[in-house]
């Protein structure tokens, strides 16, 4: 008979809220709930203990929850962030055993067979794990048993229990049937039959249950009772692609780190090449011998698969770190990950000079962004609005995943509708002489000069966004002065609103 396995199941019931409250401090003092969306309605997806004590519960319509508890902090559910945290916790659990399996969305299995003695026995290991997680601000429950299902159920219902080998059936018998965690239909069938505990179910004949609830259910029951085994699937790596280098002797020198990164980049690029992909996001992970983990990440504006470019980007980042990378006693593992891979078009050699210039520009943007931060290197994108000063917004130049309007098209033979340059803010002009109600000015004084209008077109009437930008309706004119200046100015307010008292402003200059 094979040696009985020992499984530690961890359950993190408040993963979603703990993620928000433990590190950066909580979003606000109000009780916190995580909202989810199903069937077009918002509901409580998860919540912290405090909110639950106030009577809220998962699955509750959010509006109800808001009505019951005021104020309430509501944060939308972020499944990816939760999954990432669970992964991180799984990473951390490596300290107990290399065989960690995810039990998404908020559980983990640790196969601790033969490992417990290193930690002073199973109970001590369990207590240690729970205490350390608690110290990190994570509510965790756990239990140890011979099979995954038994350990899992006990973690939820009998926190902290260590079941001796062979004691599973007895341990799970008093648990409610919900502990079987099976399909809702089966649960209903059991409840209809009046069977309320796992023990009551287990007492029925095997054939009786198989005929009614299926073989899979009976197998699960047997696993729960420790009479059968359920293999655990190993955890899959998170990055799209990764390469790593272990060191028997921890490395400290900058050069070794750089050459390691280059070697890793080369091996990654080989794979990327084969798959017709490029990296848009790269991450380097440095595992320190003392357990601390350092990560850096860089992004690229276009898919990359050139090792030296990758290295240059990483170096820019390392140089720009506010806290320089501290090797301490040295790194025993360095890993390079492709965080985001993207299809690349087959690279054909282009003789187009522009294409080359564009590529160089992109690379410049990447380097500048890696050096100064994404938000320091910006570009303009058009916005869908009538309001002239809001017609362009600046975004990080590396960003490509935004939706925006198209720049307005200019009819071929027409003069431009908008000046290329707008003044930082409109400048009031004075001594304006203009006919009412909507004629262009004849002359005006701007920046201490008197201008005489030679030609004008307009008005173009633009009303402000009444819902958030109250303001007077403007009548815009394109004018050309006798001196040849081409300007864009407006009268602030309609004649019937302001009478003769209207102010006039200069807003832009046509090139």
């Amino acid at each position, binding site marked *: 008979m094979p040696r009985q396995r020992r499984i530690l199941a961890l359950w993190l019931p408040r993963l979603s809220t703990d993620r928000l409250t433990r590190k950066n401090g909580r979003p606000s003092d109000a009780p916190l709930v995580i909202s989810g969306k199903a069937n077009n309605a918002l509901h409580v997806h998860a919540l912290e203990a405090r909110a639950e004590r106030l009577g809220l*519960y998962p699955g509750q319509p959010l509006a109800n929850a808001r009505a019951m508890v005021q104020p309430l902090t509501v944060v939308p559910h972020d499944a990816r962030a939760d999954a990432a945290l669970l992964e991180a916790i799984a990473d951390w659990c490596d300290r107990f055993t290399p065989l960690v399996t995810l039990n998404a969305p908020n559980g983990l299995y640790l196969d601790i067979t033969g490992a417990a003695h290193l930690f002073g026995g199973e109970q001590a290991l369990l207590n240690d794990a729970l205490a350390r997680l608690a110290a990190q601000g994570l509510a965790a429950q756990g239990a140890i048993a011979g099979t995954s299902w038994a350990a899992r159920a006990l973690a939820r219902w009998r926190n902290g229990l260590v079941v001796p080998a062979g004691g599973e059936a007895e341990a799970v018998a008093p648990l409610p049937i919900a502990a079987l965690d099976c399909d809702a239909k089966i649960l*209903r069938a059991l409840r209809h*039959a009046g069977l*309320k505990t796992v023990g009551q179910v287990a007492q029925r004949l095997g054939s009786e249950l198989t005929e*009614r609830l299926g073989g899979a259910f009976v197998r699960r029951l047997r696993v729960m009772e420790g009479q059968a085994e359920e293999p655990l699937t190993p955890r899959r790596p998170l990055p799209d692609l990764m390469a790593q280098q272990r060191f028997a002797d921890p490395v400290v020198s900058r050069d070794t780190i750089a050459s390691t990164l280059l070697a890793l980049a080369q091996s990654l690029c080989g794979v990327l090449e084969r798959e017709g992909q490029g990296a848009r996001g790269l991450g380097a992970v440095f595992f320190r011998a003392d357990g601390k983990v350092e990560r850096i990440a860089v992004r690229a504006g276009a898919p990359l698969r050139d090792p030296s470019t990758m290295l240059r980007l990483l170096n820019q980042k390392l140089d720009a770190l506010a806290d320089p990378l501290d090797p301490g006693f040295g790194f025993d593992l360095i890993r390079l990950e492709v965080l985001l891979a993207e299809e690349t078009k087959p690279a054909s050699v282009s003789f187009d000079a522009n294409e080359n210039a564009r590529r160089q520009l992109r690379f410049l943007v990447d380097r500048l962004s890696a050096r100064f931060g994404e938000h320091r290197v910006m570009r303009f994108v058009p*916005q*869908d609005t009538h309001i002239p000063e809001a017609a362009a917004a600046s975004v990080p130049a590396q960003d490509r995943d935004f939706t925006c309007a198209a720049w307005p098209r200019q009819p071929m*033979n027409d003069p431009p509708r908008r000046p290329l340059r707008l003044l930082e803010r409109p400048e009031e002009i004075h001594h304006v002489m203009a006919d009412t109600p909507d004629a262009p000015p004849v002359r005006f004084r701007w920046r201490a000069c008197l201008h005489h209008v030679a030609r004008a077109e307009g008005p173009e009437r633009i009303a402000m966004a009444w819902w958030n930008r109250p303001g007077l309706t403007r009548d815009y004119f394109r004018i050309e002065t006798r001196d040849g200046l081409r300007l864009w100015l407006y009268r602030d307010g309609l004649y019937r609103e302001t009478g003769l008292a209207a102010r006039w402003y200069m807003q832009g200059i046509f090139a």
Partner: protein
Amino acid sequence: MTYAELAVTTNFSFLHGASHPKEFVEEAGKLGYAAIGIADRNSLAGVVRAYEQWTKEKPETRPRLLVGARLVFRDGTPDIIAYPKDRKAYGRLSRLISEGKLRAPPGKDRATKGECLLDFADLLKYRHGLLLIVIPPPSQLGSAPQAPRCDTRSRGEEAVGCIGSPGEMPGSRLTKILAALGRDTWLAASMLYTGEDRRRLRDLMRLARQARVPLIAVNDALYHKAARRQLQDVVTCIREHVTLKEAGTRLQANAERHLKSPAEMARLFRACPEAVAETLRLAGRIRFHLAELGQRYPREPVPRGKTADQHLRDLTEAGLKWRYPRGVPPKIAAIAERELAFIADRRIAHYFLTVHDIVAFARSRHILCQGRGSAANSVVCFAIGVTSVDPTDIDVLFDRFLNTNRREPPDIDVDFEHERREEVIQYIYRRYGKRRAALTATVIRYRSRSAIREVGKVFGLTEDITGKLADTVWGHHGDTLEEHQIRQGDADPANRAIARARHFANELTGFPRHLSQHVGGFVLARYKLDWTVPIGPAAMDDRWFIEWDKDDLDTLAIMKVDVLALGMLTCIRKAFDLIHAHAKSGKEPRLLLATVPRQDPAVYDMLCKGDAIGVFQVESRAQMNMLPRLQPRTMYDLTVEVAIVRPGPIQGGMVHPYLKRRKARRENPDCVIEYPRPGPEYPQDELENVLGKTLGVPLFQEQAMRMAMVAAKFTPEEANGLRRAMATFRHAGTIHTFERMFVDRMVARGYQEKFAQDCFNQIKGFGEYGFPESHAASFALLVYVSAWIKKHHPAAFCAALLNSQPMGFYAPAEIVRCARGHGVTVLAPDAAFSDWDNKLERTAGGALAVRLGFRQIDGFREDDGHTIMHERGYGYRSFADFARRTGLSRRALVLLAEADGYRGFGLDRREGLWAVRRLPDDDPLPLFAHEGNRGAAPEQGQEHIAPLPRMALSDHVLADYQTTRLSLKGYPTQFLRPRLEREGITSCAGVGQLRDGARVRCAGIVLVRQRPGEGTAIFITLSDETGVCNVVVWERTFELFRKEVMGARLLLAEGRVQKSPEGIVHLMAEKLIDRSGDLRSLMDCGEPSRAHHPRHAHPRDVKVLPPSRDFH
């Protein structure tokens, strides 16, 4: 200096325009326009509203009203506004739009409701007689025309084929369209402050000159006043499904698209004054007027060689002989004569004949029907079988109709059995063809609920907030959302986004949202209907409806027949069938509405006691309270009963005066009734004629109208206006002008001001819930017949009511409880005995018992029910035998088990379910498929298993409620009784025993919440195992306990007992507590504590006894 605006988009171009048609007409009048043209997007839906307003404007100053449509094409052709010159051209326009609406989009085989797919070629087909204004698209302007790059290979319709072809210069595209359209075409120019208006105008002038087409000035109005721009932005966002922040250039840049004064238009077009003058020239060429639309009724019902009048006379005479086999009373014959003369004079015999034709068909199929409406309670209609109300029972009401406004079209609604109305509709389609018979439209308008939802989205409020706000509106009739409702929605009324959303939601309320089909209003025509009004497809296959609703048809005096569905008729017919099938002798003739014995005192006795659950119309809480006070003894009393518990009489304060006089009259039949009198210089008895039958108190809508004419001296036109205002004041708000007129004139003629004001309040109360005497009289007959069945055949009544669900006021549980209260045995649904329908069984004692059918089981399918009946033969031997022979799906077997339907096989609910689960799944493996059904599965031998844990009675009762919504085993509250008693809570029956004024606490399951009309009280019916208790919550208390009242399933009411002399008991609530938690605890009992596991209780589980099947 004047002007005509010819490009007007109203809010009947749904979510494009932001003003009502009438607002445009009014504003055009104020601005001194020569004409205003209403041209909605591919629609004529709004023109009648504009026309109605136009008829109200002063004839000397009003602009001409032009009727047209803005044609929006799918093939890239720019919009073209079309105005028909004359009646024939109007028909073409209507047909053109119909064609677009009935066209299936590519790749689909049927047209989509609410869409209109037009191509330029369609316009050319119907172009004759249409004056067209081509609207150049804003983006395709300017630019010198270039040589056309049209493909030379294209054939004859080159000009058309090229439109929209890519790479072509816009100027030449316009030129081509103008050339293709030929004469009677204009090119529109607008000055909308785009910044290039003048350059544009210059280009257009050149283009027009080249194309030899006159240029015409338009302002392309979307709203009547500049102030509506904000609402226009809001509706644009709703249309585009974006928030205001995201909308950007989808909104208009400015607020210029309103009606502008002629002087302003002249100023804007000073470079091209001829464009303004052209508007008057175009308007001057239109001769068509909506009043020209007449209606011609189908000829089919009239036999060859006869006139309609003659045929109706023959039918009437034959009918009278049939109705009065012992001789026609001379009074009746005389009335019939007068009616026939009137009908001949008004030339509406065809109308009566078409109705007769429909009713005759129904009768031939044994479908019960009953007519109502102003023309339905005539001797003629009684004779030809449209109604069964005997004119000798109730004074003939048609008289009134004869005397009132002669322009009003007659109105007959016919109710049919709701389950069989479809047969009648199919008959109408068969008989008249689909192009000549179509349903009326219903204009679906924004109500405050829908408005706040949509507007909230536009302002970026989340759905949970808008949903909550919407939920504070009671029912769907709330009109404006008040601040306090915002607070009840747990939102802050001072929050800017919420305050704005509320403001615009209120502004949007009343806007048309889309057109839908009316439930049964048919318009019939001798020729094709789309010659008169566009027709579009309805949501249902093979249904069409016109673009106008009943008010529009009234305005144009077009007659329609309402073919309505009434659940009670189904119930009565089913009861008649059951009575006939179980009659002792089996020889009695089948009962008919007209042959139920009249004036049965036992029936009235029952009603006087307020014992009316299930009886038509008088089963609501308020009605059941009224019955003992009103003490109905005749058919006319029932007519009053039906009409009196309505917002009209209640708001007019007419209920108590009437009851007082009735009581006085009952106690002393000779007592003198005081009638309201005018000043001494006027005829003293003028109101006696109007109010005689109702003891001097106005109760019916007709009486209010008559009073307006007699006492307030309204002219027929004014009275007609009042009637219209009454019907529509909720979205029109014109009633107040009539209010002053009505009250002042009555006071001037010496009536007491209070009386006049009360009468008018009543008129306001009639509002949309108006209940005329003619309808009440028709309903009174059904009240009597259903009460008669309930009294004399309670078992049949119970079964028929259940078999006609959904209908009526009460849940099956109450119907069954009431039947059991009347001594009827009710048996549970059982696989071994039941049919699909509820049926009657003879018990051992010979009495009739009701056996509940499978239809009472939620989710059970009808064909499964029939399979069980079909296979039953001499009965099923066992559950296994049953499962094998019926071959039912696993789902059906489970449903039966959950409903505890295997008791006949000796299995209770729990054992039944466990047994069902043992059967293999529905889809056998292909290997075994040839063995037919699952019963043959050989490997399942006899099974000997340990007994399952016993199911508690409370669990059974709750499970019964969850599956069949009723239980014959008990009532949920009985299991809470010990707990409630400990707390000193009185049972429902106990409340009735207390003295008047006693303090009491009573808890029960909420059966009904009701707020009659605009009433200040909310009625709640609580129920427990002992009976029901009627709780009254005043508005003020309700506002404090809104959440409890609206949400609680088990409610504890604290307050005082109020007992009336007639023995009606009410609990006047002062405090309400939601005890739904106790019910939930019943369902959870026995479950071991669930440690850290959260409960996933949906509030729905708490509301009704939960529909979820999670019992234990």
